[in-house]
């Protein structure tokens, strides 16, 4: 074979040095860096993974924030009624002329109009299909009766509940976290793989001595690195801005996120195992993710769907992920308590990953 190996050209007279063994020149490191660069240098991907969930959490958190109990606006046309109604702190009373009061009621500026009726009676005019109208009716009548001398036989006091952990934002943040873990795992795997296949870059890599498992392992590593940032940004935002409680163990939360990401990564790998075009991949990914966005309890409880559907919904990976994340964050549940959800996530991984490897096409 000396006749073959004798074909040595000028470029390797300077290249006789043995392979550089620095960490950075390991193929796994280079492939992982390639994935991370591909992601970081794609502004749209950054937006969807980092900015969008925060905008969504911020926007929904503001829209559904718990407001102080609202003061209802009502109108009256008589000074006597006005002074009686003033005693009710939850009512904002205005005395108006009859036409002005009717106008205010009709245009919804006041919820109720209290008018003196014949023989010292009171007439309440309001829309009884409107909860504000009904509430105003009860409050106004109570105030009028009390002013006329009614005594309440049972004394009562109020104790108000406004505890973190029971608000909508507390429900929402673990849901968004689960949704984000699903989206970023499936998109980052799917687009990168299908794009490399479409460009015939994957075929080119296979033509090098690159060990094939490294290619997939690099996705695992880059995913885990991205995960640290993704999760801390969203959870940090929820915890610091909205004081979302973190009642469970943080290392266990991290583990839940990793299991979730691996499970969805396997699903993403399966989705992209054969697809040749970005369009097809995109359609397939949405087909898989869209139902879960709706039924898995991201924005509202999955319990709202009919009982007959519950077994199916519970078997979906996103439902399992969100239930486990909520249990950890809001109820401080241990891993043992979320083992059914972990089993669902693990099951999806065990189903998708081997199947993806079997189906995977390098070209």
């Amino acid at each position, binding site marked *: 074979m000396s006749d073959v*190996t004798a074909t040595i*050209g000028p*470029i390797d007279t300077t*290249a006789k040095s043995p392979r550089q063994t620095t960490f950075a020149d390991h193929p796994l490191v280079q492939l992982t860096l*390639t994935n991370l660069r591909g992601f970081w240098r794609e502004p749209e991907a950054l937006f969807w993974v980092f900015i969008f969930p925060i905008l969504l959490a911020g926007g929904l958190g503001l829209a559904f924030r718990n407001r102080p109990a609202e003061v209802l606006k009502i109108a009256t046309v008589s000074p006597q009624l006005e002074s009686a109604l003033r005693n009710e702190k939850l009512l904002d009373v205005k005395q108006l002329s009859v036409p002005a009061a009717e106008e205010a009621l009709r245009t919804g500026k006041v919820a109720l109009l209290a008018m003196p009726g014949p023989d010292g009676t009171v007439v309440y005019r309001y829309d009884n299909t409107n909860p504000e109208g009904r509430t105003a009716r009860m409050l106004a009548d109570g105030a009028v009766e009390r002013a006329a001398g009614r005594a309440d036989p049972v004394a009562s006091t109020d104790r108000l509940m406004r505890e973190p952990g029971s608000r909508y934002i507390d429900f929402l943040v673990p849901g968004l976290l689960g949704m984000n873990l699903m989206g970023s795992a499936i998109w980052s795997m799917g687009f990168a793989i299908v794009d490399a296949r479409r*460009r015939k870059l994957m*075929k080119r890599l296979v*033509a090098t*001595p690159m060990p094939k498992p490294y290619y997939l392992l690099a996705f695992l590593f880059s995913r885990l690195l991205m995960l640290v940032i993704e999760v801390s940004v969203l959870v940090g935002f929820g915890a610091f801005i909205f004081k979302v409680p973190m009642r469970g163990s943080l290392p266990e939360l991290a583990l839940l996120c990793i299991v979730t990401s691996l499970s969805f990564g396997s699903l993403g790998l399966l989705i992209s195992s054969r697809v040749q075009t970005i369009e097809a991949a995109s359609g397939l990914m949405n087909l898989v993710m869209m139902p879960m966005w709706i039924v898995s309890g991201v924005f509202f409880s999955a319990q709202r769907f009919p009982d007959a559907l519950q077994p199916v919904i519970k078997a979906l990976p996103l439902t399992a992920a969100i239930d486990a994340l909520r249990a950890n964050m809001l109820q401080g549940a241990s891993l043992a308590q979320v083992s059914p959800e972990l089993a669902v996530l693990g099951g999806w991984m065990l189903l998708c990953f081997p199947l993806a490897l079997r189906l995977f096409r390098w070209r």
Partner: protein
Amino acid sequence: MPHTSPPLALRVRNLRKAYKDVVAVDGLELEVRVGECFGLLGPNGAGKTTTIEICEGLTAADSGDVELLGMRWKSHAAALRQRLGIQLQETQLGDKLTVLETIRLFRSFFHRGPAAAEVLALVQLEEKSHARVGTLSGGQKQRLALACALVGDPEFLFLDEPTTGLDPQARRQLWDLIEQFKLAGRTILLTTHYMDEAERLCDRVAIMDHGKVISLGTPRELISSIGVEHVVEFSAGGGARVLEVPPLRALEGVRDVRTENGNVLMQVTALHRAVPALLEELDRQSLPLTELRTHSASLEDVFVTLTGRHLRDE
């Protein structure tokens, strides 16, 4: 390894590959000697890419045998991969990486080879080392693809249509680079449908058509095999009178005459006799000459003679 002389870097025997409805490679035989630049020349669809990809171990043949650097893909894939440089047709490297990052990535897969910076210098892309691949011109991308094929200091270089789609200047630049690798003693197998590329770069050429080698030899040998030294192309007349072709065949030094798109092509063995005879004949037919060109016979003419078609029939 067979002890033939000179030694072989690649031997392909009776290779066959069919896709659903077409036979891409049909009993192909090929021998590439160590240190030579061997060209597979043929039109699109002749089976060049399928052949080269089977040799590269990327496509499985239906039958036949490929022996590369004394090894076979079945038993020595890992060792072969370390010793080959491959440039595929139509690979788009990742747009988001820089030139240097791309080369470092490919370099990381090989046990030995030059440093990334040296390869960059070799393909004259030093200035672009921090540019994103997406911003490179076609010629620069092709040089980068070449750099990625060179990072493992390969003994055997596969180049699949290295200059397709490039402008003339970029093509010449790439040819210069490939000539340097030849001087470096590497064995090269390249495919092309440009006859000028094959003539300039290749020590030996196999002309392929319909999955078979229809002619093999040095470019000189192939051209002289058709017994024609020059081709005279002309058009005559203005419309009123029609050129009579048969008398042209009888002219001195003319071997064959064809008409093509209103032009007449004469394959001639003796240019200095054929041209005066042609002018005399046109004079006899009272036809004015409107255009006259001559060129030395090329591989294109070889292909046309062998198949009746052009290399670049679209």
